[in-house]
C-alpha cells in the first residue's frame, strides 16, 4: 500500500489533531482506499458494543436497593407491565403501566396525608446509568430537601419503566411531586447517561409538556452535585407555583442563575 492511499496525509496530521479539539465528531479518520482503516473501524465497533451492552444490561435491583438503603428511607421494588426487555423495547404503553401486584405493594405503603415527593428509579434504556448514578444523586438531593422540611415517600425502584410510570407510582403512593431517575437512550459517546424527570401533581392527563427534565447526568456531563442542586431547585419552584413543565422552566433557570 502506498503512503498516498491513506488520509489524513502526514502533512495534515497536526491539522486534524487541532480540528479534533473543536468537535467530538469522528473527523479526519485514516482511510484505506475508500474505506475506514482498521483502527477507527474497531474504535466505532467498541463504542457501539458498549452502547448496546448498556441497553441490554439488566438492572440489579437488590444491589440498587442496598445502595439506596443508607439514605434512611424504605425502598420498594416493583415492576412495569413489560415482562422482559424485548417487550419493554417494543411496547412503550406497557412500560408506562404498573403490574397489579406492584399497585398493591405501593398502595399498602401509602399514608393518610400525601407525601411531598416520591423518588422513582428505573433502568429505562441504560441500567448501568442508574446503577452508578442514582444513589449519589438521591443522597445529595435528599440532603437539601430534608434541610427544607420536605416529607419524601419511600424510594421506589421500577424495573423496565418508562418516564410516565412515575405518574402511576405517585398516584398509588399519594405523592404531590414525582422525580423519575431513568437511564437515557445511550449514544456512542455516552452509554451511561441518566435523566431526571420532574412532575408536579401527576395524573392520567399528564403529558410530556408537563414535565421538567435534567438530562445527561453522569460524571462527564452534569455531575452529581450539580444535578442534585438543579432537581432540588426545580422541586422548590414546583412547590411554590404548584405547576411543572414548559411554563416553569424559565423561572427555575433564573433561580439558578441568581444562586450562582
Amino acid at each position, binding site marked *: 500500500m502506498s503512503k*498516498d*492511499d491513506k*488520509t*489524513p*496525509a502526514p*502533512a*495534515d496530521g497536526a*491539522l486534524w489533531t487541532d*480540528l*479534533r479539539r*473543536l*468537535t*467530538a*465528531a*469522528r*473527523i*479526519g*479518520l485514516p*482511510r484505506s*482506499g*475508500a*474505506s*475506514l482503516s482498521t483502527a*477507527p473501524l474497531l474504535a*466505532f*465497533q467498541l*463504542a*457501539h458494543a458498549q*452502547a*448496546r451492552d*448498556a*441497553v441490554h444490561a439488566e438492572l440489579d435491583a437488590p444491589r440498587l436497593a442496598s445502595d439506596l438503603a443508607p439514605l434512611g428511607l424504605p425502598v420498594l421494588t416493583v415492576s412495569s407491565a413489560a415482562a422482559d426487555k424485548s417487550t419493554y*423495547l*417494543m*411496547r*412503550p*404503553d406497557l412500560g408506562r403501566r404498573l403490574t397489579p401486584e406492584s399497585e398493591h405493594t405501593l398502595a399498602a405503603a401509602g399514608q393518610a396525608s400525601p407525601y411531598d415527593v416520591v423518588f422513582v428509579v428505573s433502568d429505562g*434504556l441504560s441500567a448501568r446509568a442508574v446503577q452508578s448514578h442514582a444513589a449519589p444523586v438521591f443522597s445529595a438531593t435528599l440532603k437539601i430537601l430534608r434541610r427544607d422540611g420536605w416529607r419524601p415517600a419511600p424510594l421506589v425502584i421500577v424495573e423496565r419503566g418508562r418516564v410516565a410510570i412515575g405518574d402511576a407510582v405517585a398516584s398509588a403512593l399519594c405523592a404531590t411531586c414525582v422525580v423519575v431517575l431513568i437511564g437515557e*437512550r*445511550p*449514544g*456512542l*459517546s455516552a452509554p451511561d447517561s441518566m435523566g431526571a424527570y420532574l412532575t408536579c401533581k401527576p395524573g392520567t392527563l399528564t403529558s410530556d409538556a408537563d414535565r421538567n427534565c435534567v438530562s445527561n447526568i453522569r460524571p462527564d456531563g452534569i455531575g452529581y452535585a450539580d444535578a442534585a442542586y438543579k432537581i432540588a431547585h426545580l422541586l422548590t419552584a414546583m412547590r411554590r407555583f404548584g405547576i411543572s413543565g414548559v411554563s416553569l422552566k424559565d423561572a427555575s433557570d433564573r433561580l439558578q442563575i441568581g444562586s450562582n
Partner: protein
Amino acid sequence: MYAATVGARRYVFADLKTLLAKATPARSGDALAGLIADSGEERVAAQFALADLPLTTFLNEAVVPYEDDEVTRLIIDSHDKAAFTAVSHLTVGALRDFLLSDHATSSVLTTLAPGLTPEMAAAVSKISRLQDLMVMAAKCTVVTRFRDTIGLPGRLSVRLQPNHPTDDARGIAASILDGLLLGAGDAVIGINPATDSPDRAHALLSMLDEIRARLDIPTQTCVLAHVTTTLDLIGKGSPVDLTFQSIAGTQGANKSFGIDLALLKEAHDATLSLRRGTIGDNVMYFETGQGSALSANAHHGVDQQTLEARAYAVARAFRPLLVNSVVGFIGPEYLYDGKQITRAGLEDHFCGKILGLPMGVDVCYTNHAEADQDDADALLALLTGSGVNFVMGVPGADDIMLGYQSTSFHDALAMRDLLHRKPAPEFETWLARHGLLDVQDRIRPRVMPSQFRALLPAEGT
C-alpha cells in the same frame, strides 16, 4: 368488504385500510397500533385479496376520510386522470407486473407518476419482494436542480451532515471540511440545529453561505429548522437556499409538527421568490419516516407504510429538491430490527420514486434497535443499486448531536467505487478542480487544499 379464501378458510377484511394493514409485511409499529395480521396465513390471504383489487377502488374509497383530512383531499383533488388512463383497467397485482415489465421504461414511468396515488404505490409495495422494489425503483429517474443536478442515472449524491451538540461554528466547519474532502455535500450541506433559535439558525445559515461562496461550491445549504423559523428568516434577509420541513401522511400528524398545507405553500412561495438557485428552482427539502403518524396518535387505523406513502403526496405538491426518509431513526417500537428497517427503506424509496419524487434515504439506526453497521451496509448497498438519489454523510457514521448512527463519508465513497456511481456532475468538476480526484477519477484527497484551510474560523469566533 374484501375477502380471500385459502383452502377451506375464508378471510374477510372490513374495509380498504384493514386490507392494506393486514397485507403489510410484519413490523413492530403496526403491532403496536393493533393493525397487524393475526397470522402469516392471514397476511398472505390479504395480499391475495389486495392483488385482485382494481386500482379504481383507491379513487372511490379513502383510507382517511376526505371530509376530515386535507392530505386525502390533496391526493384526490390533484389526481391526474389522463396519466392514470394507462393503468386504469389494472388491478394492484397487474400494476406490479406492468411496473416490472420491459414496457415500463423510465420515460413511461415519469409520465405515469402523477396518475398514481400513494395508496396504489403502497399496495404494490406490500405484494413485492425487496428485489422487486429495487428493480422497479431503479427504472425511475427523478432529476432536480438548484445549483447542481441531482438524480441523474449513474450518480449518487450525499447530504453533508456536520451536526454539533452546541452548534459550535468551528466544530461544524471542521466536519464540513472533512466531508468536502471526501466528496460529500453535492445533495446539500445541511445542519440539524441543536435548538430552534432563530438567531442561531441565522448565524449558521450565514456561515454555510460564506463557506459555499468562498469555495464556489456548486451545491446548496440548509439549516433544518422548523418551517416557521425559516419563513421568518427569509423575511429578515437570511441566505436561505432551501426550506426544510418534516412532513407526515395525515392532517393530524402534520398538525403535531406544527404545519399544514397552506403554511407549506407560503414557505414554498417565499423561498422561490429569493431566486437563489442558479440552474433550477427546486427549493424544498422534506423529511419523513414510517411511524410518525402513530407516534402523534393521528394514524386513523391506517398502517404506517401506507401513511408514509401519503406523506409523499404532501411532498409532491411542492416540487422538492430532496425528500429523505429517515428510516431507522424512530426506534424499535416502529421498526424493530435490521430486517424491518431494510424493508421499510426500500419500500419508502420505491413508493417515493414511483410517485415522481427525488428520494434519498437516511440509512440509520438507534442503539436500542436490533441493528448494527452490517445492517446499515446492506441497506446502503441495496439502495445504491436501486438508484437512490442521495444518502447521508456523517463523520464516522456517528451523529454526536442526534445520538444515532447514519452513513459516513467513507460509506458513500465505498458505494460510489463499488457500484460505479459518480457525484452530481457539477460537483464532480469542482472536486477535480481542487485536486481531490485521482487519475482514475476516484475521490482520493491527499493534502487539504489551502483554500479549504483558510475557511476555518479563527479561535474565539
